[in-house]
């Protein structure tokens, strides 16, 4: 089914991020973060980088010639920085104009209702947060010239088994369809041995409750059953920090 394929695609992206993560990475990163007094709130997502030219063997570093050095310029690619605040000021403090997101029926609320459950609202109350991605790099990449043993060609086919890659065709996908296939590369700068603040985020949801009525989203009468906070408790800055290494390749089809 088509919706399932969308889910599969999202999963594929996540898999690209997570699958190569060594099992011992979390522990090692936590130790590194702890050594820096960073608390290890978030694991570092570190895909293992395999240098195909060297295979599993170590490669020796070689000196660069002067000519090569002269050709090195700053990265020329595109970088985005993104900042989003929900009901907060620039440093993550809830806005006074919104009653600081406290008190009965304060303005910091968001309501969800679900199909076939009319007039029943799942309310997020007293919520605020921030998201900051200071450097999101956009580049191009290609799938490897040779498919790996982990290829999953049916992922790129429709429910009738036809390949959707490229211009599409009325047959199943073959190795050639995915080899060298272009993709958008999303990444953050930095190195695997260094903790960079690639994503900064905090979220506070003071109360989660159910309200009823056609305009139940205007009510604040029922009790809460959940609260949520996402932040870095080891520093005075409220934002949790995430270091992202490796990259995400986005294939469209």
């Amino acid at each position: 089914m088509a919706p399932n394929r969308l889910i599969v695609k999202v999963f594929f992206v996540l898999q690209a991020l997570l699958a190569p993560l060594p099992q011992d990475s979390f522990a090692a990163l936590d130790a590194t973060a702890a050594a820096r007094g960073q608390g290890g709130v978030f694991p570092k997502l570190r895909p293992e980088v395999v240098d195909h030219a060297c295979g599993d063997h170590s490669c020796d570093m070689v000196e660069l010639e002067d000519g090569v050095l002269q050709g090195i310029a700053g990265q020329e690619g595109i970088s985005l920085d993104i900042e989003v605040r929900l009901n907060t000021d620039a440093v993550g403090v809830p806005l006074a104009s919104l009653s600081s997101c406290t008190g009965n029926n304060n303005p910091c609320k968001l309501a969800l209702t679900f199909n076939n459950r009319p007039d029943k609202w799942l309310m997020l109350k007293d919520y605020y947060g921030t998201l900051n991605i200071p450097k999101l790099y956009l580049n191009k990449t290609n799938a490897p010239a040779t498919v790996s043993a982990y290829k999953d060609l049916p992922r790129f086919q429709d429910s009738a088994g036809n390949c959707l890659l490229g211009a599409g065709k009325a047959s199943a996908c073959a190795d050639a369809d995915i080899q060298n296939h272009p993709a958008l590369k999303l990444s953050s700068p930095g190195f695997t041995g260094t903790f960079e603040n690639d994503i900064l985020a905090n979220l506070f949801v003071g109360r989660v409750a159910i309200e009823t009525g056609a305009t139940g989203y205007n009510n604040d009468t029922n009790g809460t059953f959940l609260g949520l906070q996402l932040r870095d408790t080891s520093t005075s800055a409220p934002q949790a920090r995430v270091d992202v290494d490796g990259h995400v390749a986005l294939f469209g089809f």
Partner: protein
Amino acid sequence: MNRQRTPTSRCHEPAKRHPARQGVGGLAAVLAFGIPVSASAAMGELDDEAMSAVNARDGIELSYATPNAGTPIGSVTWDVDVGKTAVGSVTVNPEVFARWEGLRIRAVDANGALLASPATTTLSFDVGDNEVTDTDNSVGLGISGNWSRMRLLVDAFRQENVSANSPGTFAFDSAGTFSFMNTKGLFNDVGTAAGFNLDISDASLYFRQGGSGAPEVLFDNILFNVGFNNGTIGVNNAGLRVAAANLNFNLTFDLRYEGAPDAAFTYEQGTAGSNDRPVMYYGWQGTLTDFELGVKGGGIWYGATGSPAVENVANRSEGLNFSARWNYDSTFAWVVGESNPSGSGNPRVQVQFDTWLKINNTAGTYAFDTPNNTLDVVKANQSPGYDGTAGTGGMCWGTQTSMTGPSATCAGSAVAAAPASGTTPATPGYYPQWLYVAPEEGIALVSRDAKQWAYSNRIVIKDDFNNDGDYADTDSATASDTPNIAPSTAETQTANFGFIYTLGNFDANIFFYPGGWDFANNAATTTGLKLDFLIMTQSHDGSDTGALPDWNTGSHYMMADNDVDNDGIIEANDKFGVGFLGSSILLAANDLYLTLTSAGVNFRTRSGTTPGEVRVQFKGRFGGGDLPDMASPVRGLDINANFESNNFQFTLEPPASGGVYIGFSGLVDFVDLSTANFAENGTSGTSGDDGTFIEIAEPSRPSAALRFANITGRIQYTGGKLDLVSDSEIANQPAKILVSSSVNMGATAVGIPAGGGATASAGAPLQVGRIEFGGNTLGSIVVPSGTWYAAIGLKRQL
């Protein structure tokens, strides 16, 4: 202020007379007007000194000087279609006139202050030949002239049948020179012996709505130069034709705003405490190649032709139309920057987009081509394609075979009709809809099939770190320009990425009406400007299926990385673009007012019981691929977003004192409009009518769509900024383009409702009526109140 900037274009060299023809003519005459002559003046002898100053003069020179207090011109009337009762086979009475009133000319100084001295113009005629290009030494005529700095004031602009109304008052201050020469006849259109040059230096264009003290918008420091040698300026059966293999073009200006003017039509840049605020610097500089301009008689067209019927563009009334096309020389640049708030020197920071590449190299195509632009005065209902029945004459949105249509259907379209409720069409967003906005009596500016099939392939960032007026690194005796702020390395930096904005096929019906609106009292006012428009740039040209955007003829909005491997060398197969492919954009408005307020330039729909309406739609595919031909596109997501409002407010704001950026604020009440042939899918409540919606779909399976449909409620954006942030403004970051705004939602968005009046009220909750996935409704979201903020910056990877 006469800021001195050096145009990058090469100056035109005036045609030289052939030495053998020196002395041809030998007639010298000087006519002087407006200079008082004493009745008792008598002829006197010239002394030796005066005699020695007399030398031979060729040609004829006319000069004119105004009185010290200036000269009134009165009015200029543009009357078209006098006595006509039909245009071709269409029975229509298109006769109507527009009039510019209260024209005056007077000398002014560089800052706009009136001078008690004459403003002068000189016009010279001379005979010779163009020794540079004219091999047969044909006799030619040259005309040159100049004018001293003077103001052309236009008090009012009025329509024949709404003569009490005017958009406001214009003042244009300028000084300049021009020259023009041609052989074998002044307007000989054969050969390439013509030369032309026009230089307007330090010009200023003021506009205000109301009397002295009303807010003023100012296009300032206008430098305009256009010139060529070896070209053609001629008249033939089609009209005036101007052509040149290489044409130097330079137009730059600063946009400024005074919400509370210090003085009327004056310029106080850099003056302490002044309300004169710089907003931005903008321009185009360089050389256009294969340039052609055609200016012809003929206004709005009427009726239909062919089968399937399309508007009959050949059946024109009286008016003016022009066409233009060109390619870009590699030197050509589009520049955007921040005006220097100090009042002198170059912009503090500017971004230059140059090195243009065509996306379509088919023979006969141009980087820019606009074949049909028409200016006319129209009566009510007389939209292009009008066949004599009110409500005819409109444009097709989303069709694949006909970009415009004369009637209520987009004839000949091969795609399916609008989708059923809750579903998406086989090719999302590509079903056609006939759109129409009824014109009132006013000025019509109409364009068809304009194309910008090229994009800038390089960005040069010029950042005057030490504010010494240039972008060089080592020229100061006291300090180096070289910044010490990592990671910057130079005042002029080149980034090997580009900014792609192409226009696949651009069509527009834009109508301007004099007369404003009192929003507090819901009443018309005599001074102001009202707009109706349908503007669309689409990607399909009649040959594509909508399944895959056509790179060669489409509208694309992307960022281009021209050095994927980051080795600092631009190579083949080393370029990649990411952004929106095959896009189509619709801007539609009915009764939208442009008002100069103390806060800024305000665009706002009419309030009251019949409020104005605005619709904006974007359709495109987020993805990317290899440049320059996008041979292997990454097909990411298809996006189709439609916004409808009957309470649209948007204000372009000058910066706070000391700042330089474009500010903006506004308020939008999202509604599901029901106006036929304007709103998405027509009447409210019928199948497929989702009002305001955002849809994200799979390119290969459009039915797999995530859809936020039937969005209603209010958002209000405040403190918005579009800012070019210099390297030196934020440590350890490269220069960037930053867009940011706070957004109040629902009840937090307090403002004047669509009904108008002076009392602000809380907005309706921002509500996503249906969240759909694959055609199934999942639920809905309501944001009753709150304040969000978003900022996105674009910069180099450093």
